[in-house]
């Protein structure tokens, strides 16, 4: 897998590059800001980019903006956003506009090589990956009545694993359930969320989005 890293912290870029040398991920460029990232993407056409949410010049949300720009201009490039923020709103902003091939991880996950590489692999395969901590925070969010409230405890568990980006098989392993049971749960979830018309893959993504996006989600940006 060919990867471009964008982070204004030189130490982190170097560390990450060296760490990824031990895997099959090839870091073909590492840059310090959003415009350099866009140039690198245009030049190398990588499989994926890792982008820090805070970069020069304003150090606020350049990463999200760059991620959305890249997804719009290069649909084949998957984007994994790294963030220090616990807020779900940046993750939601990313997912508002993208139904797949994006991920949002807390920055400290970079030291967990397995998690990082797994997330990279899944976003390049078109899934969307959200950090478990953020998913947990969203799960505990009980602000307004939403279709998700109608789900049973088990169904919600399955849905939150789907949101983290796990496949059916992964969910089976996590919850110690048979594939058949998991499929049944997912079927119930689709039915309760009234997702009956589209193909299986899109239903999956949309279920996750219904779960992640609170009904009164604000349009941002």
């Amino acid at each position, binding site marked *: 897998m060919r990867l471009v890293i964008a982070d204004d912290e030189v130490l*982190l870029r170097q*560390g990450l590059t060296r760490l990824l040398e031990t895997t099959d991920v090839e870091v073909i460029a590492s840059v310090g800001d959003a415009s350099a990232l866009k140039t690198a993407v245009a030049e190398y056409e990588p499989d994926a980019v890792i982008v820090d949410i805070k970069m020069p010049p304003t150090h606020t949300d350049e990463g999200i903006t760059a991620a959305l720009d890249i997804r719009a201009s290069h649909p084949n490039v998957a984007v994994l956003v790294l963030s220090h*923020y616990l807020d*779900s*709103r940046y993750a939601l902003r990313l997912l508002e506009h993208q139904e797949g091939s994006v991920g949002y991880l807390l920055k*400290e996950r*970079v*030291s967990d090589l397995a998690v990082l590489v797994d997330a990279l692999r899944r976003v390049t395969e078109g899934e969307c990956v959200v950090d478990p901590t953020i998913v947990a925070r969203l799960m505990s969010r009980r602000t307004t009545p939403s279709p998700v409230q109608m789900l049973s405890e088990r169904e919600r568990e399955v849905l939150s694993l789907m949101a983290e980006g796990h496949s059916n098989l992964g969910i089976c392993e996590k919850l110690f359930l048979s594939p058949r049971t998991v499929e049944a749960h997912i079927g119930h979830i689709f039915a309760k969320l009234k997702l009956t018309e589209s193909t299986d893959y899109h239903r999956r993504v949309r279920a996750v989005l219904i779960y992640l996006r609170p009904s009164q989600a*604000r349009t941002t940006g």
Partner: protein
Amino acid sequence: MVYQHRHWLCHYQHMVQTGNLGRASIVAAGLVMASMSVAVAMRDPDLSLAGPGWPMLVLEVGAGLLLVVAGAAAMARRSTSTAGVLLACAGGAWLIREWNSPVAGSAVVFTIGLAGASLCPAVAAHVAVIYPNFTPGRLGGLVVSMGYLVCGFLLGLGPALFFDPATQGCNQCPRNLLLVRAENAWISWLTRVGLWAATLWACALVVLLVVRLLKASVARRRVLAPVALPVIGYVGLVAWSDGRLAGGGLVVEPLEAWFWSWQAVLLCLLAAGSAVTRIRARRTRASLTRLALDLGRSADRNDLRSTLAAVLDDPDLKVLYPLADGSRVNAAGLPDAPQPGQSVTELAHGGVPVAWLSHRPRLLDDHLVVEEITTAASLTIDYERLRAETQAQLVSLRASRARIVAASDAERQRLERNLHDGAQQRLVSLALALRLARITGGERSPADGIRLDACAVELASALEDLRDLAHGLYPSALADEGLSAAVELLAESGSLTLKIRRLPERRYPAAVESAAYFFVAEIVRRCARENASVVVTDEAPGLVIEVEVDAAIDRELVDLEDRLGALDGRMTVSRTGNAATKVRAELPCAW
């Protein structure tokens, strides 16, 4: 205290200067001088300026006495007290003209008569230049001092020093007490120069007064004219008469009498002119009594501005009060300034400004109206000024409280950014380095590998703590997206169920948003693991935030109250059920 002290001091001085006693003694002195003039004139009517016949004598003495009385009356008013003294002096100077008569009887009277024979025009000119309470400019001051030099010295004291009655052929004259040396040539030289100088001076004064009258506004002219016009006439006559003599004209008795009687008439008019001002003052006072009554009647005595605006018919009128630091505030204690193009009139109390009126130009050119306002409204002015001072202090106190809270918010925000950009970044890099060390060095020494793993776990939890800490300090959502976004994120923070209803989406001033957010966050934090509901409504006066929790809040909420109070907000706590508490905050948003 300092101000009051000064005020009373000034008042006391004023009483001494222009008290009844002083005025009575001036009138008494005038009567004495008048009777002496009558005595001198009666002794030999042919030698007197009035000539034989009592009507002329009555006119002469009457003019002097009228000036003295009018002067004493003018002294009663603070604004014309100096002019009053001078007016009385002019009367005196007019009366002593009769005293340099050979039949003066006493050397003292004769000498005074000699030295002051020509002083009257200078004093009358002085009155006209400063009336009613003008500070003469450089030109006015020059004209006044030239008058004293010419009329007092060249035509009075100067010749008197060299006038020996005996060598002048006046054997019956009393002794000249001022005589230094008998020099007839010097006397005639001084007199000749003095007559020319007096003519020129009188013309200059007439020009000055006429120009001033023409340049004054209508209201101002109404005040100046009754005094200035008689003086112009009187000094004009003096110039005519002196100019004629200086040009070699002979003393022609009927003409001199004509000049003299008209001068007396004009001085009577001067006295009357000053009295007219007093009568007008009475009338103004009567009209302004309404103001005093209105101010006294109104239940809320704080509205000097609108009462004055109605009485003076100027809706844009403003009343400003001075603060100790020199700034000006309105009755509410808020900084204010006169509108551009408006005139500003000072209201003073014992010389100390107590208020300013900003009004349409020329509305208050008449000093009498200003004085009457000061008198009629003095209690209200004092009351409003003190209240404005207190209000201003409150305003500045509130502003400083708000600044302190804003500074603490800014500091929280700065800390939050620093933690994200500094400590957190470094720890993440450290975690990476640790991972690399684990990969490269772990194989060589399994024990080290285990230790490194333990470090990584510690580091991960440190990072987690740091992230929570930074988020609690100042959620970036609050600064970026506002109150509703930040409160919604509170619901994610875990243990409790937060029901949020009706959150206004719009942005508020940063101080209001953070006060409202920390109010909710703090209550939610204190009753963790309970259910809470938050209702935020945007009502007319401001933002109303109600937080209802399924718990009794035992601890004091003073810190929250202070935070809200800094923005003029209020907080109420009420028990709504068995173990439920409702905390309500109101925040005005007019900031």
